[in-house]
């Protein structure tokens, strides 16, 4: 199956891209089959697809954008080198391999034995050029939408997302039960999302 152009810009192009893109296993097999050469399009597609997921994992567990960016690079380099060398035996489980690698790199980092230098030195590899889809929030619109929320919703969302704090902590500060905070938080987020995207309630 042919890949669509990687720099899909419009939402319509992105939807087409998602529909027609090869599955993970097919991508993995294409990269392995091309070795010792490179299937640049397949490698770029793999990076475009998994970079956001690895970054989210990194931000969730490391709570640091720079460390999450390093994690993306390390895991993608490791994954591509394993595919090129034929070391991934079950290409259809590519996503599990990438998650496992992400977990291992984070664990190693916490033990003080960050493998970053080792990964980059061992493979001495560079990643292919790839572009990730990115949505930019209209901050003015977000301010207006926040102002339109009920006061409790605004309090909970501001205190939650300023520093990604759990319901127990936010509830303790506002005199609310954690379960109540979760309900208010979810309702507020849904209202905010619909307001920001212009989606009808």
């Amino acid at each position: 199956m042919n890949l669509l152009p990687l720099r899909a810009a419009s939402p319509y192009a992105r939807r087409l891209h998602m529909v027609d893109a090869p599955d993970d296993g097919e991508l993995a097999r294409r990269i392995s089959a091309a070795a010792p050469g490179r299937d640049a399009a397949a490698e770029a597609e793999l990076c475009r697809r998994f970079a956001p997921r690895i970054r989210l994992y990194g931000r969730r567990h490391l709570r640091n954008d720079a460390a999450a960016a390093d994690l993306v690079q390390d895991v993608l380099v490791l994954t591509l080198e394993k595919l090129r060398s034929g070391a991934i035996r079950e290409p259809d489980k590519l996503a599990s391999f990438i998650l496992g690698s992400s977990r291992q790199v984070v664990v190693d980092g916490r033990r003080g034995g960050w493998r970053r230098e080792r990964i980059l030195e061992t493979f001495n590899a560079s990643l292919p050029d790839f572009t990730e889809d990115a949505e930019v929030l209209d901050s003015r619109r977000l301010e207006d939408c926040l102002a339109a929320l009920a006061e409790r919703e605004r309090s909970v969302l501001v205190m939650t997302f300023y520093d990604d704090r759990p319901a127990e902590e936010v509830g303790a500060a506002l005199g609310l039960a954690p379960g109540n905070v979760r309900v208010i938080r979810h309702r507020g987020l849904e209202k905010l999302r619909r307001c920001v995207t212009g989606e009808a309630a």
Partner: protein
Amino acid sequence: MRRFTCEAPIPAETLEGYWLGELDPDAQSSLEEHLFSCARCSSRLQALVDLGAGIRAVTREGGTHAVIGASFLGKLREDGMNIREYRLGPGGSVACTIAPQDDLVVSRLEAPLQGVRRLDLVFHDTRLSTPVRLEDVAFDPQSGEILLAHNTPFLRSMGKATNYTQLFAVDEQGERELGRYTFNHTPWPGSQGS
């Protein structure tokens, strides 16, 4: 243990709990397996995270007013925000302003909150034709105060004005004023509102 599939998208509440560290380890592990193999759910998580980042940015810029907790105010200070603070008792008034270096202005409105079930806050601003009522604001009865973070750009644009805020306890019998707080605002010399 429930395993999510693309035919069964992860509920939004679960994504929120995952991002905020509220899931148990098994549920978290299972959810991560799904997120790595599901473009749709990972995109939904990304949208949630982007919205959270937007809220954080607006808060740091003082772009929204909100009732906040005392511990949250401490966190803002720890993060280096310059916060101007005014404390008022019931019936109190204060001469107030916002300086160029201030990131945020917070009012501490003291009130007898014990036994209060619902609390409403009403703003009377000379620039607005009608008062603005914030219904059922969150509060800790033990604290004996409400912390109100003001919208920074809104304050900066204000000229000299006297505004006031009221707190009301509301129940089946009606409403009872707990306090009236007067703000005599003067713009900082040379600022937008002066």
